[in-house]
């Protein structure tokens, strides 16, 4: 039973109205075990059915429900109101992305960047597909951390470099590039590093580190970006000094 209320200040943007985004306040019943997504769902179900936001799994796996909660990029399904409640819970759409409606942002730019680093296993010759490509536990451990990325894009919302230079390939796409570069079954490292060894690639990163701070899966994109800088530098120098033998 609710014995007190909590105020949600939610950013509203209705493009059809032509008006600028504004905040709308909702006073809803508070429960000690409620997460921010529960609050948004309550508003949608009982107060204002016009509120638009994304969500799906409610368990921190799908990466759909990201939003800026009291100024910090968070998964709303994993953020308890009791942890962020400072008089009111302010919910904004993820920063650094164009808003489509209310808390729904446009991810097309991220998807283009993600596809540019070929986030899948690339092989010249797949050989006999009825046989397994054996990997030892240490081979899996090499890319396991980066493979935990759920594409929630909190890292992009936290990245001041992406905010100032939208061409920057960004943290999640870089982390996923490293995930496949480190996979022993993959042969596409050279093409990925060629894409990342550009002005809008890893070199835009100034190692602020906020991407790793907000990552809900401890992927450590900032660390991945620094590793990619080392790999890109080695590839670049090999091509300069030994152009004939330069490959992976």
């Amino acid at each position, binding site marked *: 039973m609710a014995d007190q209320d909590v105020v949600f200040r939610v950013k509203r943007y209705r493009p059809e109205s032509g008006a600028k985004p504004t905040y709308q306040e909702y006073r809803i019943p508070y429960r000690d075990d409620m997460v921010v997504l529960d609050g948004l769902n309550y508003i949608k179900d009982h107060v204002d059915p016009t509120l638009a936001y994304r969500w799906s799994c409610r368990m921190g796996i799908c990466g759909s429900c990201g939003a800026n909660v009291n100024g910090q990029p968070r998964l709303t399904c994993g953020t308890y109101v009791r942890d962020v409640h400072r008089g009111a819970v302010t919910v904004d759409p993820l920063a650094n992305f164009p808003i489509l409606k209310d808390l729904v942002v446009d991810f097309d730019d991220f998807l283009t960047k993600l596809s540019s680093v070929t986030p899948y296993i690339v092989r010249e010759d797949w050989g006999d597909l009825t046989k397994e490509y054996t990997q030892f536990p240490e081979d899996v451990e090499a890319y396991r951390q980066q493979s935990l990325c759920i594409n929630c894009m909190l890292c992009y919302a936290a990245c001041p470099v992406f905010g100032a230079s939208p061409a920057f390939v960004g943290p999640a796409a870089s982390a996923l590039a490293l995930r496949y570069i480190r996979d022993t079954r993959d042969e596409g490292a050279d093409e990925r590093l060629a894409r990342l060894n550009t002005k809008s690639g890893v070199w835009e990163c100034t190692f602020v580190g906020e991407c790793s701070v907000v990552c809900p899966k401890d992927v450590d994109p900032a660390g991945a970006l620094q590793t990619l800088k080392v790999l890109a530098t080695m590839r670049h*120098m090999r091509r300069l000094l030994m152009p004939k033998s330069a490959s992976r």
Partner: protein
Amino acid sequence: MFLEPLLWGLFSLGGFITAFLFPITLFLLFFAAPFGLWPTDPAAYSVFVQRWQEPLVRVFFFVLIGGSLFHGTHRLKFMLVDAGLRGPGVQAFLDIILNAVAILGSLAALYYAVRGWLF
């Protein structure tokens, strides 16, 4: 020619030098020697001059100064960019000025390192 990987490589190498060699050098020359923690005469300029004749000592100070300069200027550029000095023109200007400082400083260190040794 795309120079960013080369400059970042020098920044990265300089980071190691700045983090490890620079504090040790500062400690030895400015604390250990004056306070008697290092068995040498703190006032003996001649001791340093004598050591300076050894090629390894010259190489050490060249690497120390050059590496620290490349690391420091690159880090300063990152700080200025993060503070809001952005835009293609501004960043190109910062690149030129700060890399020029690192290159000229390293060349000066190289000149003093080889002077009296190679010429």
